[in-house]
């Protein structure tokens, strides 16, 4: 599927920028030279300067690194939690199944933003709050996905055959459930990471996310927004980075056969 390869390619490039950028970049994300505020690219700052004369290239690569780490961490935790509980619920069934799905539906009813905001109040550091808040919201998608697949598989003759042939639940999970859930996981993970990044940026935009001077995509957009006429090039960078990140993930997710 060409769109999926396009997506992976784009994501690869951004991850590379996030990993290698900060290492090879001379100035660092915090060094200010007020005289160079909103200036164009030069030898030291390859993407130009922001409104406080800080190197855009450094801040952009750090911001990508931050957003990607939190988003992937949150989605990975959510996936692990969701899949485990989903499989457990469908395997055990009965009150455990009903209890867990009730919990899932209750949390689903609450906007993800609220969960992250509340976690922001409960947990001291913001990245931790984002990780917990986003994981607490996203595990539901994985839970429902796994549970629906598991329920249809567990009722299938293949599982009945396994039981008759003396195989245990681990074999059933490894040989029947997991290969079935695997491909769907890619789509759900890609969408999960995309939603996480969008949420971090949105909260940064309404200035309840990361705090200055941490480089974060949403916060950078907010800080550069006022000077969008003077230096449109500066504002476009975080926007383009966020757009490219979300586009690559959507293409990866959307590229189903």
């Amino acid at each position, binding site marked *: 599927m060409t769109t999926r390869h396009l997506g992976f390619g784009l994501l690869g490039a951004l991850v590379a920028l996030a990993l290698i950028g900060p290492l090879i970049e001379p100035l660092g994300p*915090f*060094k*200010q030279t*007020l005289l160079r*505020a909103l200036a164009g690219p030069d030898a030291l700052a390859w993407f130009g300067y922001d*409104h*406080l*004369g800080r190197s855009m290239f450094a801040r952009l690569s750090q911001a990508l690194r931050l957003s990607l780490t939190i988003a992937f961490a949150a989605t990975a935790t959510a996936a692990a939690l969701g899949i485990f509980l989903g499989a457990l619920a469908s395997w055990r069934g009965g009150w455990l199944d009903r209890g867990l799905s009730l919990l899932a539906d209750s949390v689903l009813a609450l906007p993800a933003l609220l969960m992250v905001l509340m976690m922001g109040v409960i947990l001291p550091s913001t990245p931790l709050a984002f990780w917990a808040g986003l994981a607490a919201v996203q595990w539901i998608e994985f839970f429902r996905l796994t549970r629906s697949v598991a329920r249809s598989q567990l009722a299938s003759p293949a599982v009945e055959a396994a039981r008759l042939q003396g195989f245990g639940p681990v074999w059933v999970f490894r040989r029947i459930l997991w290969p079935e859930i695997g491909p769907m996981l890619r789509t759900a993970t890609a969408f999960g990471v995309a939603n996480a990044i969008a949420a971090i940026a949105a909260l940064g935009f309404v*200035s309840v996310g990361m*705090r*200055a*001077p941490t480089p974060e995509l949403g916060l950078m957009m907010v*800080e550069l*927004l*006022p*000077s*969008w*006429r*003077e230096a449109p090039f500066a504002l476009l960078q975080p926007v383009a980075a966020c757009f490219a990140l979300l586009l690559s993930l959507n293409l990866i997710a959307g590229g189903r056969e």
Partner: protein
Amino acid sequence: MLSRLSLAALIAALPALPALADPATLAIAAPFEIKAADPLLSGDIFLKLDVMETLVNSDATGALLPGLADRWSVSEDGLSWRFHIRPGVTFHDASPLTAEAAAAALTWSWKKEGILAKAPVAAITAEGEEVVITLKTAFAALPAFLAEYRTGILAPAAYGADGTVTALIGTGAFRVTVLEPPLRLEAVRFDGYWGGPAKLEAIHYAGVSRAETRALMAESGDAGLVVNLDPASVTRLASVKTVTVHSVSLPRVLLLKLNAAAPFFDTVAERRALSLAIDRAGLAQAVLRYPAAATQMFPPAAGAWHDPALAPLGYDPEAAKAAFAAAGWVPGPDGILQHDGQPFAVELLTYPDRPELPLTAAVLDQMLREVGIAVTINSTNSSEIPAKHAAGTLQMALFARNFALVPDPIGTLMQDYAPTGDWGAMGWDNPAFTAAVRKIAAEGGTAAEKAALSATLQADLPVVPIAWYQQTAAVSNSVKGIVIDPYERTFGLKSAEIVQ
């Protein structure tokens, strides 16, 4: 079935012709959010929109003028003030403004921790056409306190049984028709206004939190008056032909509050060294975009409190480093100053409600690092500053202090520097200064006495002034008579009009 559903949605969403802004309505956009119809919470907006008025007014220089009280006098011992109520004034619900109504409104504000709670008030009564306020001790600044928005006068019908304000019934030039907190207020001309009916037929107030959106509303003509523009929009709107940008300096100062009890700032030399490390001109240009570097605590707008003869605060990082070295702060391996093992690392508190504060903090962080001070910025809720002041754990805080709460800065000085205050000095003790402030508050003071106080602040530097604020507003060229008041009390809506 589905197609019928979406068709209905289309009809509902058909944009009616954009309501042509009927000629005599002025749309105002500002960042302030109306919390409730309660003068204590949002009185400043009601005052600015000429919906509500106070007993005493003030002009652009801070001099007091008669408001709802046309004259007032004080007894010999200064303990009993008599405010004569202007005759013929009616509230918006046509009930007359009597001394009893005014006294009731002031008592309500006094009991609800309004500004009168800061004055030594003993009792507020009404005698005939006068409101009599008896004090425990003499207090010359009382009239200035009655000009503050929290002492706004509402009709008796406005106050509910349980003490909450249920309706906004003032005496101003405009009567409120729609009040939808937090972002919308609409008022129409009150023909029975004692100062003669206004020229504008109606005003629409819209609370818009984002500065960029407000700037766009000015540019697209959606708002005739846009208040509080961010620096970048000021430069851009200057080039827009249909709009003129006004800016006036305010008695509001960008301050760096220090904990004088902390080992970093306990000597004057250390505080002076810190002040020398700050390039105020560079900072003002980069962040505030107008020449606002503070040479001393009080801006020219503060009248007698501003002493042109005072030596301005300088910028000399080398001298700052030398001064710190003299005070025993030796640079460690990582360039951070140390004094018998303790690094010069401080937490700088600030809040994001005013967009320029986090930016300034980021700039200060770098400037102080040049002289070896490690700063960690904590941009959190504004209440953290008074909370940490009370707990004694505050080290450094950056905020904008408004000296125009009461037309005469003495009100704020008394709260902040006699001897300390949540938003003023901390761990600083100067009995002479405190006594002088109290004397001026009680009996008023001469220009020389005020200048002396300014000189002490300049010398002792309990807090380090950084910049003087300017109030910016964009007014559409088709609107005449708008006033930009340095004391942020009015927009001049009473006299404004729209000319095509």
